[in-house]
């Protein structure tokens, strides 16, 4: 049950490879994801420009000299990352802008946990350049990344994306292009069940977290995990899954919805 290999197509332009570690990279999207990738790419020698348009979260504060906030895509950018999960209208605007501004051969990797990479590619004129990835806050520091080629992605584009992620120290797992991909889907469903349990007052939040860490060997309790990733991100994944799968079992816990809508979470007292 291995994922299908993406076949190479002939007579396609080869996207530029970001092999030069001083290559210019442009990162756009939500602040938390952008901050993590801007930092990591800078550490690995890339010349990083970033922007967080329309983000309600504060712009990432990065050390001066390592990355620069730049609303316009640099003409010499050899690679781009789009890291929006919550505001999909903004994500579409970002991708359309990147598609217009970058040469048609420049690869774009885009977070595809709340909308498939294939759907994102359908918004663009140069569909061959896009590959999806699993980007949620806190994931950038992990040693592996999930990559999802679209139905359009030629092997050359996938190769460029793999080369990029290897250059920033990551191992790669190629998965099919589905909402939630693998780990975001599993994690958010666990957080959702934890929210159902809290809603039913089966345990206190801190007790729930402690139980899952001590008894089930979780590296982090689901509530603490949700707080680290950001509730709006978790909610966005769950809503997208529910919309995509259309199954009653994937409905979002009402408590989680209320917390996201009200912008509050329980107090750790």
């Amino acid at each position, binding site marked *: 049950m291995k994922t299908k290999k993406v076949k190479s197509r002939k007579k396609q332009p080869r996207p530029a490879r970001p092999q030069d570690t001083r290559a210019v990279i442009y990162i756009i999207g939500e602040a938390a994801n952008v901050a993590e990738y801007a930092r990591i790419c800078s550490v690995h020698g890339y010349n990083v420009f970033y922007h967080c348009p329309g983000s309600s979260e504060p712009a990432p504060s990065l050390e001066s000299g390592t990355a620069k906030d730049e609303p316009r895509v640099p003409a010499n950018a050899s690679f781009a990352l789009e890291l929006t999960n919550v505001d999909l209208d903004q994500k579409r605007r970002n991708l359309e802008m990147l598609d217009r501004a970058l040469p048609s051969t420049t690869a774009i990797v885009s977070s595809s946990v709340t909308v498939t990479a294939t759907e994102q590619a359908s918004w663009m004129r140069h569909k061959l350049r896009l590959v999806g990835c699993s980007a949620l806050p806190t994931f950038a520091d992990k040693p592996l990344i999930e990559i999802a080629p679209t139905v359009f992605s030629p092997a050359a584009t996938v190769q460029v994306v793999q080369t990029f992620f290897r250059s920033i120290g990551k191992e790669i797992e190629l998965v099919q292009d589905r909402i939630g991909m693998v780990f975001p889907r599993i994690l958010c469903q666990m957080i959702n069940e934890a929210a159902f349990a809290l809603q039913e007052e*089966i345990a206190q939040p801190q007790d729930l977290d402690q139980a899952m860490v001590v008894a*089930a060997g979780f590296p982090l309790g689901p509530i603490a995990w949700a707080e680290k990733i950001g509730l709006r991100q978790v909610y966005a994944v769950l809503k997208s899954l529910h919309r995509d799968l259309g199954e009653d079992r994937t409905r979002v816990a009402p408590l989680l919805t209320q917390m996201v809508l009200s912008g509050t979470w329980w107090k750790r007292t």
Partner: protein
Amino acid sequence: MVKHLGIVGAGTMGAGIAHVAALAGIDVAFYDINGTLLRQALERIKTNLTREAALGTISKETAAAALERIHPHTRLVELNSSEIALEAAIEDLRIKKDLLRHVEADTKPTTILATMTSTLSITAVASATHHPEKVVGLHLIGPIQDAKLVEIVRGEHTNANTVDRCVEFSKQIGKATTIVSDSPGFLVNRVLQPYFDEPLRIAAEKVADAEQIDRIVRMIGGFAAGPFEAMDAAGLDTTLTVREALFNSFSGEPRFRPHPALKQKVAAGATGQKAGRGFYTYPEKKG
């Protein structure tokens, strides 16, 4: 501090609790109606204590003292001085209710009545007693010696003193505690369900295969074992039993519906490591 513990039932759970309680310095009145089962359980405890002493995790003297603290009985009335009487019979509501009614009759009015269960409603078990406020559920996750946490389950009528005493007892035997309310699957087994079920669905939808999913969960999630590895280790039959119990207890809630792939593995006898094959295959142990 709990000084006198009564245990009803000389199965694996009962013997395990007797073992850890005796090591913690608690006197154990160990009851089973079947004297043969009781002797066999004591032999197992003796063997395990001897092995621990041989491994150097405890001294020979500690092992011998622990064994002396366990007093076998085939008459329930011998548990009358117990501060906590812990019922560890098979997972059957009728049997547990019947046992608890007799234990209540044969112990002192202050004795707490604890029932060990992973699926049954504490409120339903307590309904057989005159004092349901003294009834509480204890759920240890995993083999008793290795379990790090006890879920202390409050029934509808369980009072605070009952819960407090069980927290105290759990700490004495070296376990962390979480107090949970009486709901199907309690807490850990329930919140754990998506960790097993969602990967089955992801694999069935061909998003990634079991090996890939395990690697992703280990390397991104930081889990010690991936979900398919964990299910194989726990036993696919056990995993399915818990899932079916949750599904039935929640009156067919779709979130807990067992996945056909899990049922198929169990039907094929591929129940995990113990069977030599589950989602993975395991080489036969030699010797």
